[in-house]
């Protein structure tokens, strides 16, 4: 889950273009983390030192670890430890960007430091992606609200990201949410969730994106914007809201009611209540979630 937030960080800070990021996101599952990248991340070596070893490697047929030890940058124990590290997936994104030549080791080093301090993540956090850290990332991500997110809102967003990973794929980047008063629709479905936390949820995307989204969701290849594709968009939203209501019931003892999903026919939606637009970039296109907060007791 870190890779998606790290991707947003890179994009919003102008480090990468959307195209570069999408390419790296797609690639990250097949990327191999290099020892140098791990050493920079662990703070054992500077980018400069890693670059020196890489230059040495062009002259000597030796492994990176071997050279780093003989040059005195790493101990053998550190090499062993780095090789055992459970790879943080945001580092895989960094490695993919390195491999693509979008950033260099020095840039990666400063990005890791800035990103970690901005989000108060420390070294040991990566091995266990605790809920607390993800919640903090979600909170920082939603700075637009200018208030702390309620626990219900946090649960909702956290689950949404998990469901995207689970049902559509982890190669997405959430872009910064913004307050939204009006929204011109593409193909848009909505569903109201009612109870002590009431929210109207919208999922919108162009027809071509719907086709790709549905193909992943159903795990079948669709090639036209047919009724199954349309139903997939509703189905995902309904599934997410259903799982959210299960979580709310289990965690907070709150019972929520779901209304039947609705296809929005108007070309322009206007929102009376506080509403947020959350665009999510996938390689196949951008999908748009909107949350209209109707009432909450949290």
């Amino acid at each position: 889950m870190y890779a998606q937030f790290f991707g947003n960080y890179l994009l919003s800070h102008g480090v990468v273009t959307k195209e570069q990021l999408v390419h790296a996101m797609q690639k990250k599952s097949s990327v191999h983390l290099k020892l140098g990248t791990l050493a920079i991340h662990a703070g054992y070596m500077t980018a400069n030192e890693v670059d020196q070893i890489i230059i040495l490697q062009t002259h000597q047929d030796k492994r990176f670890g071997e050279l780093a030890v003989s040059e005195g940058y790493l101990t053998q124990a550190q090499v062993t430890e780095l090789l055992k590290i459970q790879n943080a997936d945001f580092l895989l994104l960094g490695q993919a960007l390195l491999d693509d030549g979008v950033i260099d080791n020095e840039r990666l080093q400063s990005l890791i430091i800035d990103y970690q301090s901005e989000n108060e993540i420390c070294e040991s956090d990566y091995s266990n992606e605790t809920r607390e850290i993800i919640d903090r990332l979600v909170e920082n991500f939603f700075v637009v609200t200018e208030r702390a997110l309620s626990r219900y809102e946090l649960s909702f967003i956290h689950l949404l990201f998990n469901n995207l990973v689970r049902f559509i794929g982890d190669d997405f980047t959430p872009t910064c949410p913004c307050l939204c008063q009006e929204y011109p629709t593409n193909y848009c479905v909505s569903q109201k969730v009612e109870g002590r936390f009431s929210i109207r949820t919208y999922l919108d995307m162009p027809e071509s994106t719907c086709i790709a989204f549905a193909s992943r969701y159903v795990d079948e290849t669709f090639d036209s914007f047919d009724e199954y594709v349309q139903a997939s968009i509703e189905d995902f939203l309904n599934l997410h809201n259903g799982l959210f209501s299960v979580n709310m019931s289990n965690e907070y003892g709150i019972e929520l009611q779901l209304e039947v999903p609705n296809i929005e026919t108007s070309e322009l939606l206007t929102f009376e209540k506080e509403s947020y637009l959350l665009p999510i970039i996938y390689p196949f296109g951008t999908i748009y979630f909107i949350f209209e907060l109707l009432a909450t007791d949290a």
Partner: protein
Amino acid sequence: MTLDDAKILISDDSILARKQLKDIIARYGNPTFLEATNGQDTIDIYKKERPALVFLDIVMPVKDGNAAIREIVSFDKDADIIIVSSVGTQSQLRAAIDAGANDFIQKPINAEQIHHIITSRFEGR
């Protein structure tokens, strides 16, 4: 009864959900599928066709799943109804069982659960 001789009613407002369920069941045999897209249709088709098994979504237009269950069970107390819903909370589950459902499946549906339901009710071919 064999699965091939059975009528199975699938009631969900989503054409995708109906297709996915039919596709899974069709792996095990070739029953006659009946489809409904809202609670009232479900009741009407049940009364006319008397299917051996009903898969029913709860959140549906016109009349919701639980209202449909109550009406079907008052018509046929032996009706075999399985809820398939994205809202598997304890209270929803209780409400469905109280209304007369025999089982409750949380979406996304998993082929193993469907297989179990089918094999525990019908003979193989």
